[in-house]
Structure formats: C-alpha cells, structure tokens
C-alpha cells in the first residue's frame, strides 16, 4: 500500500488521481495485514490496492465526476461495487480522473485537467519518439490516455494500483485500456450493479474493470457480479465466480471477424495487428470466419440520439438545491437553476443536454428517440444472428490508432472526437454484450495497441478464457517507467496480484 501511495506521489504529473485517500487507505491496509497475520484474509482481494473512477459514490470521500457541479461533494454512501470491494478487504487508494461526467474519449475534458498516458514517459516511447521540430518543448509531446476512464487506466498502467474501476457507456473502459496497454473489461449489461454509479446513459452504462492481466480481471469480476436489489436492471440469476482455465486447445473455437469494423479511419498499423491476431488463431487450429454486422455504421448516430436523450434526463437532477454547486444568483428559482447549471457544467455536458432535450420534445420523439430505439434493436439483432450461427467470439480492433499526442487531440472538439473514437466499441454497449480489450503489441511509436474480443451475453467466462489464451500468446511488453524503476524493481516483474507480498 505504501509503495503504491509513494508511486502515486511520484507520478502526479500524470494527473490520474483527483483525490488520494491516503489516511483511510493506510488504515485499511493495516486492517488487512492484521487479518493475514491471523490467517483470516477475506479473500483474494484482501489488501489489494485499488482505485475507483470519480463517478462512483464513495462514502466520506469526495466524488466530483470531474465537474464543477460536484466539486466538494462528499457522498453519504458507497456505490454497491465499491462496497463489495471494501467488504472483501480491498484498499481504496483514491478516485481517478475522467472526462467531465464521463463524456468524452480522451479524459481531457474534466475540470481537473487532462490525464497523461504513462506510456508518454516510458522508455519505449521515448526511444521511438522523433520530435517534429527543434522548437517543441520537452514536455508537450505526451499522449492522451483515451477516455473517459483515463485516470483509472493510467493508474493501473503506472503500477500505482493493482486494479481500478472505470465505467463503460460507449467504450469508456476499453478505449483507455487500449491506449494505456492494460486489460479493460466491459461486462454484460445487467451483470454488475450500477447502484451508486452516477448515471450517464442508464440503458448502456456498466461498471468497467481495468487490470494488468486477464486473470486479475476475472478475480475482480467474481467479486462484483450478481443481483443487487437496489438496481432493478441487474439479473436475478445467481452468479458463480470462476477461475479461468488455461486453454491449450482452440480448435473448437470459432472466431468471427466483422468486416464492417474495417472502418475508413483505421490505421494501417492496427489493421496489420488485427490480421496477425486472426492468423494467430487460425494457425492454432481455430476456425476464423469473416462475418457481417450490417447495421454497424448506424450505431454512432443511434448512440448520439439515445445517449444525449438519457443524459438530458439524468442531468436534470443537478439544480444546486440539494447538493453540489449552487450559484449565488437568487432572483428566482429558475434563474438560480440556469446559472447553477451554466456554471457547473462544461460545454460538452451542456451540449449533450440541449441535444437530448431536443430529441425528447413531443414533436421530435417519434422521429428521433423511437427511431433510434428501433435501430438499436437492429444492431443488437446483428449480434444475435452472428452468435446464433456458431461464432463464439468476435475479434475486432479497439481503437482506430495508437494514442494521439494531446496537442493534436485537442484540435478537434469533443463531439467530433467521440464520434470517431467510439466507433469500434460503441456497438457492444448498444447490444449489452461483454467485451474486453487485451493489450497486443507496441506501435511504431512505442505505444500500446489493443484488440477487442466481444462475447455472448453473460458468457464472460468463455470470453475471458479466450482473452487469457491470447494474452499468453502475444506476451505484451511491460511498460518501462523511470519512476517505477526507482521505487521498486520487483514491481516490474509481471506479478499476479493474487499473491500478496
């Protein structure tokens, strides 16, 4: 725990954490040690330092969603997933940075500033980096983490914690996982409780899990999944936690390659990695088939309509009266609301609220909202058809390219970026399917590239088993950070966090 805290301090320039709960974390670590000495640990997660994205409610710790609206807000309760982790002895190090209210694909639009990708400071990146002009200052070439759970991804990637919670609505866990070279799991919708996760899109949000290896993700999943009476959208079925078998024989596996995911903006590098991965499976004896998900290219517009509509609804509760920021304007209730919301929300949030309200107007409802719901059904059915025809897992890229330098990223606005970046991850949210990013290789620039596996509903075990096999095959390199080396050379060895030392 102490090592992690020290690492957090020395990697502060990454801006991955909004709040570090040093005192309570140390106390929790102490309690955990006592339990181990007694020979009574609470389970695999006892004593494991974790971080939580700042849109999950944590009792007694500030929860801001990286927004002025909630700056200084101390939650009175723990989100169900946070409570589950704490109940199993996990040590909560702090709350990680994100795009404001989880809206964005870069983790650059929060009020606490952007998150820097730890790989920007890795030896691998620095070696390959070619400055474009001599006048460019040293520190401006860092790359983004991706978003919106960038803080969580960076935290895990930089070894400041062993696992982190993110959220995934359109790819917000898988996207930064790919850019930061960590495993990012989006579980099936309805498997893990959303109670206490400040909602973005209720019908698509899920808590996401970020870890350094697939086995860890399975462990965390095991402790989080299951019905929660406080969340009526969780399924009633009893969940059985599982350990992942080590797959040796993939000949019975059928891998689908959706041709529509070969989108125009896809970088040639990623395309090459994707092909290589497909070949890997083929050569190992698996059946690799090209499949079609014909409605894929509608998913982004569909997502925009449904997402903004739900956002407009979910953000309506922020009026300054009960909690959070409240404007000094007090001429009338309406003016106070308007001023509070203008002051509390950034452009991105306000933009989405306005769009969403437009789509929900009586005269527009049928044309936009209902239409989008119908398209959503079509998208989901694409997957049903493909999985029904014998395909076990789909293999796709996660992102269009490796991480972009911050200076380049901000040249386009949030909405444009989201439209571009979500395209490969978004459909899984529409259909509620589980998906995982597995770090695969380094790009020419020395930055991580990840590939995405999409599985059948509630078949996380199968999904992660295949992901684990793949992970073993590709042997993704460990990040080489100066800061980490300074603190502890043993950390650099790829440890299974289940073995607590």
């Amino acid at each position: 725990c102490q090592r992690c805290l020290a690492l957090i301090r020395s990697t502060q320039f990454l801006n991955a954490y909004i709040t570090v709960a040093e005192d309570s974390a140390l106390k929790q670590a102490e309690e955990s040690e006592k339990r181990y000495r007694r020979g009574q640990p609470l389970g695999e997660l006892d004593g494991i330092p974790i971080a939580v994205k700042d849109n999950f409610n944590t009792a007694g710790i500030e929860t801001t969603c990286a927004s002025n609206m909630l700056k200084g807000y101390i939650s009175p309760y723990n989100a169900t997933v946070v409570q589950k982790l704490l109940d199993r002895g996990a040590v909560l190090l702090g709350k990680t940075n994100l795009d404001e209210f989880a809206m964005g694909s870069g983790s650059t639009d929060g009020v606490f500033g952007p998150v820097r990708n730890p790989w920007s400071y890795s030896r691998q990146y620095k070696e390959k980096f070619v400055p474009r002009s001599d006048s460019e200052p040293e520190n401006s070439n860092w790359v983004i983490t991706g978003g919106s759970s960038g803080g969580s991804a960076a935290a895990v990637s930089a070894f400041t914690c062993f696992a982190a919670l993110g959220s995934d609505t359109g790819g917000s866990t898988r996207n930064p996982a790919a850019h930061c070279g960590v495993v990012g799991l989006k579980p099936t919708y309805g498997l893990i409780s959303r109670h206490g996760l400040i909602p973005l899109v209720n019908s698509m949000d899920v808590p996401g899990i970020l870890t350094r290896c697939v086995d860890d993700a399975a462990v965390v999943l095991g402790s989080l999944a299951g019905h929660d009476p406080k969340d009526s959208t969780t399924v009633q079925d009893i969940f059985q936690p599982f350990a992942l078998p080590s797959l040796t024989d993939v000949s019975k596996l059928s891998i689908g390659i959706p041709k529509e995911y070969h989108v125009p903006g896809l970088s040639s590098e990623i395309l090459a990695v994707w092909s290589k991965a497909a070949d890997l499976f083929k050569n190992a004896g698996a059946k690799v088939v090209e499949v079609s998900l014909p409605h894929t290219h509608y998913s982004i517009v569909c997502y925009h309509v449904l997402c903004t509509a739900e956002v407009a609804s979910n953000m309506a509760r922020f009026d300054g009266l009960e909690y959070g920021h409240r404007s000094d304007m007090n001429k009338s209730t309406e003016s106070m609301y308007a001023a509070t919301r203008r002051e509390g929300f950034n452009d991105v949030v306000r933009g989405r609220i306005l769009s969403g309200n437009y789509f929900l107007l009586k005269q527009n409802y049928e044309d936009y909202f209902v239409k989008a719901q119908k398209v959503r059904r079509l998208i989901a059915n694409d997957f049903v058809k493909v999985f029904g025809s014998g395909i076990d897992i789909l293999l796709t890229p996660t992102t269009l390219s490796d991480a972009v330098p911050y200076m380049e990223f901000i040249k386009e606005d949030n909405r444009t970026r989201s439209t571009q970046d979500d395209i490969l991850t978004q459909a899984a949210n529409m259909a509620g399917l589980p998906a995982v990013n597995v770090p695969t290789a380094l790009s020419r620039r020395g930055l991580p590239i990840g590939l995405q596996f999409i599985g059948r509903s509630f078949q996380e075990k199968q999904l992660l088993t295949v992901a684990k096999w793949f992970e073993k095959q590709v042997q993704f390199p460990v990040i080489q950070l100066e800061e980490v080396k300074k603190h502890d050379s043993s950390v650099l060895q790829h440890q299974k966090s289940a073995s607590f030392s």
Partner: protein
Amino acid sequence: MTGLALNCTINKKSLFDRKHYFYADLPAGYQITQQRVPIAVNGSLSYSLCKDNKMSQMVTKTVRIKQIQLEQDSGKSLHDDARSQTLIDLNRAGVGLMEVVMEPDMCCGEEAAAAVRELQLILQTLGSSQAIMAEGQLRVDANISVHHPGEPYGVRTEVKNINSIRFLAKAVDYEIHRQIKELENGGTVLNETRAFDSKLGCTVPMRDKEGKQDYRFMPEPNLPPLILYDAKSLPANVNHQQVVNIDWIHERLPDLPSVKRAKLVELYGILPEHSFTLMNEDGLMDFFEDVVKQTQMKPKKVIGWILNDLLSHLKQHSLTAKESPISSFFLADLLNLLENGDISSSAAKQVFEELWKGEGKTPLEIVKEKQLELIQDQEELEQICQAVIDEREKEVMAIKGGNQKVINKLIGLVRKATRGRANPLLVKQILEKKLSE
C-alpha cells in the same frame, strides 16, 4: 386491489416513464410515472346520491375510471412570502403513489363529492389507503368545464388545493358558476390551473404553473416493465412471494362498501338509506352493530336512535362515532330499559341528554336520580287519571259527546302530572275505561 375493486382491466404488463420538468420540489428533475401503459384501465365507480336531499330517494350513478397509474410523489413546498423564499420538504419525494383518473361523467359538486366519498370508503375497506384528505393521504384535483347541451365539452380548468370533500363540492360548484358567468359576459375560459381558497370559497389562478409544458416523456430505463400474473400465466417454478398473482388477490378482496350495505339491509332489516348513512359516517356502523349486539331492542328500532338522536348530537358537536360521549354499552343499556317498559320513550330521551354529558353515570342511575321510572302501580295511575278527569269537565264532556281525539289532551295532562312516568298506552286504557263508565 384498487384496480380490481373499481372493475378495471388490469394490464398484466405496464411500463414506467419519466416526466421531466423543473421545480424545486422535484429533486431529480423528473417524476417517474406511467404515461404509456398504466397498471389498470377502463373501470367504473358506482355511488349514491340523495335526490333533492331526501334520504328516501336515493339514486345510483356511475363514473367511469379512465385509468389508475403508479407514480412518484414530489416533495412539499411551503411558500414563505414574508421572506420571499420557498422552503422545500423532501421527505415524501419519491414515495410511491396511486393516481386514479376519472372521466368527466359528473355534473355538479354534489356528484363529485359523493363519488370521491365512495372512493374513499373503498380505499379504506381495501386498506389501500386511509384516504384522509385533511392529512394529504388522499389528494383531489378537479377538472371542470361547461358547455351547452348538445355542444362539445368546453375548455377545462384544473382546480387544486382542495382539502376536504365538503370543499370539493364547493370548489366545483363555484368554478361552474364562475365559468358560466364568464362565458355569458362574452369572455372565455382559459385552460389554466387554479387554486381553491377555502377561506373565500372561490378559485384563484395559480401563479406557478403557466403555459403548456412539454414534459419530454422518456421510458424509465432503470425500471423494467412491471409484469403481473394471473393463475393461467403464472410461471411454474417461481417463488410465491416474488410475484403478484391477480387472481389470488381477487379471491381475497374484502366486501366492498356496496356489498356491505346490502348485507346490512338484509341482516338487520333496515332501509337502504339507513345503511348508506351508517357506512358514510366514520365509525357509525361499528357503533350500531355494537349496540345491536348488546340490546334486546330490534335493530329496526335501534337504527332510529342511532341516526336521529346520536348522529344529530355528534354532528352538532363535530364528533365522530368513535368520540361519542355515550358508549355503545350505555346506549344499549338505555334501550333495554325502554324495551322492558321500565321507562317511557320521552323519559328515555331525557336520559339520553343526561348521558351525553358524559359524567359516567349509568342509565339506571340517571333514571333513579331523576325518578323517571314508569309508574308500575296500577292504582296510583288510576288515581292520577281520576284526578285529571275530575279537573277537566269540559274535555270529558267533549269525549262523551263523541270527540275521541280530545282524549289525547287528557293523556298529555296525565303525562305532565306524572312527569313522563306514565305509560301512555296504559293511561289511554285507564281513561277510556273510566270515561265509558
């Protein structure tokens, strides 16, 4: 339950929606309600009215129930005009409510009041709600419009802030009157929301809710459709307590007020309007039944005492039957004395008044104290009768002359002389005997 009691079709699948608007008492910025598919639709409510205020002429009317929907309550706002601020109490925000929407089948305040009263009784019988308006357990908003016969319905106004059934009738009638006057003066009725001012007895426009709002309805994503089952559709291996079985509930519905009233009439031989009043007044039916249990007097006679003597006293003092200073036990006692012939009915009324003071004396004690027992001694009675006959020569002459009615005057005099302690029938007998001698 309420849906079944109101003869509604229960939607086995109903949906939840969000209704968006900004108001300080709505913390989420939206209210969860059932706009698309509510839980129950197309029911009816039957209620009774007295025609021309005569209890003996009761009419049964029906109002159609459009739907029943489940929704969330908002908080409460208290306006502090002195300090130009509004205080918000959020304690009840989010609590579940049931909204019953009626069709515009009623035509005046009296009908509205009777319909709501019947609904109140039904809710109380089912246990769905105590439905006490003064405590906000039942809230009523009235929608009123006027039109000439044969023409389409006029523009309606909504009237809120009605806190009792009595005020409901008043508000409706006032609003009807106001709208008619407005139209007759060449004006128009605005589609607005008005508040009922109970002190002034009129409706006034409400400042806050202006203009037509687009509520931007959206399906509630956090609540899956509500599925109810009946015996046919109940899945096999499901926990009995986890699902709602409509048929199971239907079998266990208690007797509704209309059924109860019919049973009272049959059981006790009382008139329908009697049973109506018994059920209409809070606690009166129980009181009546308690008395009947404890007395030999026939229910048909008891009812007179309950509805005339007891009820009028209760009303005068604004008390409910449960608060009656005369217990059912004492009243039964009193009626027994009357039934046994120990006292006359006028004496009984005197005792009643005394009991009403609630000083704890039993009827028997009062009778003894005031010496109200009927004179049982035949001789004593004869003596008194004789005395009266001797005094009243003129009347005796008249009776002997054929005018039988005058005997009542003599009976009255005997009564006066005995201070109500003489059995009038016996007195009449004695007098007649004496006069025919």
